[in-house]
């Protein structure tokens, strides 16, 4: 109880006014949230664990009986070369997206911070547009960009005279994953730029002026002032983007559907296909999603540790 609380209590007697104790009020105000989180988050997570240990297909769904199958979902999962490939693709995709996005975001945020340039002000006005584009729409737009015969990218390159034959951006197994990554980066970059830009504006100008007086050049100022002060938000972006890119789904669905062949089969797509297309192996789908959740959960715990280090 703080001094203010004590003063208030002393002035009018807490019980007499019928005010709830902080604990009771806290429970009352959190009741809707707790109920909903139990219903939509906690229970499904537990139930997914249950499903992942049982044989669940359409036939079992109809009968409502899920026989125990002795970890067979997991053993089959880890023996499936497609799952291993999906995990590998997911990791490549995530690493690529995170590294490129953080580097681009720092560079772009520094550019946008030059308020004296009219191009910077224009770019700052436009940078948030991709945030408004629905992920599935974004995927479909990029599938038009990449289309082998009719794509917009090839049209531009033809018009500029840069290519003589059309390039099959998303249809070539060697480039498909990168093509999806570019589409994904386009949609998610504004968030990273925005957060870094906000952090840049919080750095006092005097620091730079003092460093300049001391003879530091632009690179030295960046290394000694900007980067260390941006470090906390960069970590936030790293962890957030890693977790979300691990579960990339819409752009895969719209651009490649896991193809060509299985070049862009990622973890979330693997779980989705296994569960929701025939023969609907829901048990194994749940097992694969669980593995994904555990991988992402490790990042999440690291993130919370990082953020709440001071409080905890």
């Amino acid at each position, binding site marked *: 109880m703080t001094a203010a609380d004590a*003063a208030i209590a002393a002035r009018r007697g807490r019980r007499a006014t*019928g005010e*709830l104790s902080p604990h009771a*009020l*806290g429970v009352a*105000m*959190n009741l809707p*949230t707790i109920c*909903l*989180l139990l219903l*939509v*988050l906690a*229970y*499904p*997570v537990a139930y*997914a664990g249950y499903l992942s240990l049982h044989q*669940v297909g359409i036939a079992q*769904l109809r009968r*409502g009986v899920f026989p125990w199958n002795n970890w067979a979902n997991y053993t089959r999962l880890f023996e499936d070369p497609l799952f291993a490939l999906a995990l590998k693709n997911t990791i490549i995709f995530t690493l690529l997206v995170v590294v490129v996005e953080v580097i681009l975001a720092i*560079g772009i945020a520094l550019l*946008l911070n030059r308020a*004296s340039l009219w*191009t*910077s002000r*224009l*770019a700052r006005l436009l940078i*948030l*547009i991709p945030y*408004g*584009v*629905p992920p*599935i*729409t*974004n*995927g*479909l*737009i990029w599938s*038009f960009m990449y289309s082998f015969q*009719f794509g917009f990218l*090839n*049209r531009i390159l033809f018009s500029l005279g840069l290519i003589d034959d059309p390039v099959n951006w998303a249809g070539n197994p060697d480039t498909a994953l990168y093509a999806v990554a570019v589409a994904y980066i386009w949609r998610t970059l504004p*968030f990273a730029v925005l*957060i870094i830009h906000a952090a840049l504006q919080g750095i006092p100008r005097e620091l730079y002026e003092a460093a*300049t007086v001391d003879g530091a050049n632009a690179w030295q100022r960046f290394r000694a002032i900007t980067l260390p002060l941006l470090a906390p*938000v960069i970590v936030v*972006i790293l962890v957030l983007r890693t*977790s979300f890119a691990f579960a990339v789904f*819409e752009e895969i*669905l719209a651009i490649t559907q896991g193809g060509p062949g299985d070049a862009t089969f990622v973890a*979330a797509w693997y*779980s*989705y296909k296994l569960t*929701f297309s025939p023969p609907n192996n829901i048990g194994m789908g*749940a097992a694969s999603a669980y593995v994904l*959740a555990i991988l*992402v959960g490790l990042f*999440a715990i690291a*993130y*919370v540790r990082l*953020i709440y280090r001071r409080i905890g």
Partner: protein
Amino acid sequence: MEPRGLPRLLMHLGNGLVILFIMLPIVAVLVGSLQSERTLQGESRRVIPSEWTLDNFTVILTQGQQRGRIFEQATYLPDNIKSFYRAFANSLVVALGVTMLTVGFGALSAYTVARLRLRWALWLMQANVVARFLPAIVLMIPLYVVVRSLGQLNTLHAVILTETGFLLPYAIVILVPFFANIPVDLEDAARVDGCTRFQAFWRIVLPLSTSGLSACAVIMFIISWHELLIPLILNSRPEFMTLPVIVASLVGDVHVFFNLLMAICLLSLLPTVVLVALLQRYVVEGLSAGAVKG
């Protein structure tokens, strides 16, 4: 410190590249949706078509009634394109419902985290932060089984409740810093004058946080407008599909060509892109609040 000469030129160049990258897909969706299948296929090496047309939008917005010149001979139009208005209305109902519930429940919870100094409220907050990272697919598989066994597939309320549960942690994370920034003295003064804690929250904290609540509401609306996986898995009947589900259903339909696809893409991105443009300040505030403090 103002850059001059070559550095200044390079910065303009960098900004130019950024603008080009941002605008390229937007230009593509515009140019693609404003031409016919004939020019798209016939002039496959030209950026700017020789003919422009609004027929793609006409056929979608009249639900296939007015086909216009370029669809005159078309015998097949996917049913989902014809149910555009229904999907738009469903998306609106879902997004508004989710926004109201997340902001309402989120504000109640965020206040307890920001003000009541309860150890378990802080745990709840940490659980929220972790929950934000759960991949949607993990929850959708069990939720599909549960919702199916309850006979609630193909309803809007199941989608609204599920999305609310998904987004509530993020809403709380966004709102906590806004509440924490309101001076405690104001509340204390009100309580000395006889307000209960809840009245202080209702009459002082909430009215003072309208910008935070708006920021949170805008972001919740945008994310729920964009959500695909939840309505895709829970609703398969056309009358309950949302706009992203309609868009997804056209993927792989060989009879729908890019001109019509880009038109429906443009229509589906317009509401939230306009929202982002008009309410940029709130989007920026909300995203920063939700990212920096946790």
